């Protein structure tokens, strides 16, 4: 019932502030826990995995990434896909943080996207000795606070890119999720 008393005008400003604070704390923690080059690779992966699980809505991202192929899949396939998808993300992004200590984040414009409690938070990421990257974060606020739904770097959406790629694979395998899962698993085994 409290939700009904929610005042849109002031509530929205609070929401934007809270979203900015959420991202700042997420990036601060990532910098503090992941960038030190002396951390063993496995440990960095585990730390990244924890941050990723706590702050990204992995089931929602996985569902979006599978697109039209999500619904025909049964519970077991979905679970299996989400598990291997998480591994792929960990293998892909955890090592990227090594040596990026001193990266500067700046939160820019924050705006609401349609309904569904979503926000787009614009930010600039300036790694040391490298060019500034424009990054937009798609967040959704829920009972447990904010969760990241997508990261858009220089206009390129992570979720949309993966969706296109997986759709192409699924199309050529006749829509069989098993085939996609097997290919992803092979990748993670290689990345070990």
């Amino acid at each position: 019932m409290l939700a009904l008393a929610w005042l849109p005008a002031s509530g929205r400003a609070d929401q934007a502030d809270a979203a900015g604070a959420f991202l700042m704390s997420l990036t601060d923690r990532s910098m503090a826990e992941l960038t030190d080059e002396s951390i063993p690779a496995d440990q960095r992966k585990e730390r990244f995995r924890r941050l990723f699980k706590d702050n990204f809505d992995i089931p929602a991202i996985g569902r979006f990434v599978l697109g039209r192929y999500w619904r025909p899949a049964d519970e077991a396939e979905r679970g299996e896909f989400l598990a291997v998808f998480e591994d792929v993300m960990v293998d892909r992004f955890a090592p990227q943080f090594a040596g990026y200590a001193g990266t500067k984040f700046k939160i820019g414009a924050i705006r609401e996207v349609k309904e569904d409690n979503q926000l787009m938070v614009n930010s600039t990421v300036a790694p040391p000795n490298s060019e500034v990257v424009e990054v937009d974060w798609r967040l959704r606020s829920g009972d447990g606070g904010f969760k990241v739904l997508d990261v858009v770097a220089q206009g390129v959406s992570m979720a949309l890119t993966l969706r296109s790629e997986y759709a192409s694979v699924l199309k050529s395998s006749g829509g069989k999720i098993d085939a996609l899962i097997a290919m992803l698993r092979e990748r993670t085994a290689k990345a070990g």
Partner: protein
Amino acid sequence: MDIGLCRRFGAVLAVVLVLAACANRNADAPVAGTPSATADIYEIDDDNDPLEIVNRFIFAFDMTLDVFIFKPAAATYRFLLPVEVRDSVRNVIRNLRTPVVLANDLFQGEMERAETTTMRFLINTTVGVLGIFDVADGWGYPHHDEDFGQTLAVHGAGEGFYLVLPIFGPSSLRDGFGLVVDILLDPLTYVGQAYDVDDELLARPAVGGIDTRSRNIETLEDLQKDSIDFYARIRSLYRQSRANDIRNGAGAGDQVPGLYSSEIDFGDDADSTEKTTD
């Protein structure tokens, strides 16, 4: 300008007009919250790649060239030359491209950007010693690029369809034509012809290509590492990145309205997904 060039230019213009007139289904940039959102969702899953088989073949050819020629050349270039020299190489090449960028700024009605391009050229050619130093950047005139493919897009032309060009890589019908027009717009094309120094025509893109490649060695490696269909990944990246360039980087993320909105992907039991993708 000789007759052959005039004719070529005429032919390109004709095609350009046809393309612009077609201004096909990609023309309306999706805007969050508009009723057209359902149509745009279809767009997300549309490969718009009727030549996929040929494209994949050329992509494989390009990747092979990259492995054996471009990547080693770029790595050697990066290894041999200090970063200051490499930055100067890029500065000179960017400065030489000024006429093309300026023309497209003007075609798009971007007067502020046209002014920036002009000031950059004046400052960098003089104070920056023939473009070797990018002084203008520090004076509040940062670099930007433009091309005729973007000009066509700004005037409502859709991408046509996806196209992989030999050596040049990912492109589209629209951007491929844009590439030809940009070559014709470039005064250096005619300097090269007049003095019969065709080598210049090849040297500049070759050096520019190696320089650009040298800046993407790790990025591309990372991109490829977890990829299970690199062709499809690059196709998607190219499209999104071009869309971003066409918007001049403004409002990134808006191109996918309601990406996760409940009516599209969270409606597990609703039929909306089928409706929008049929």
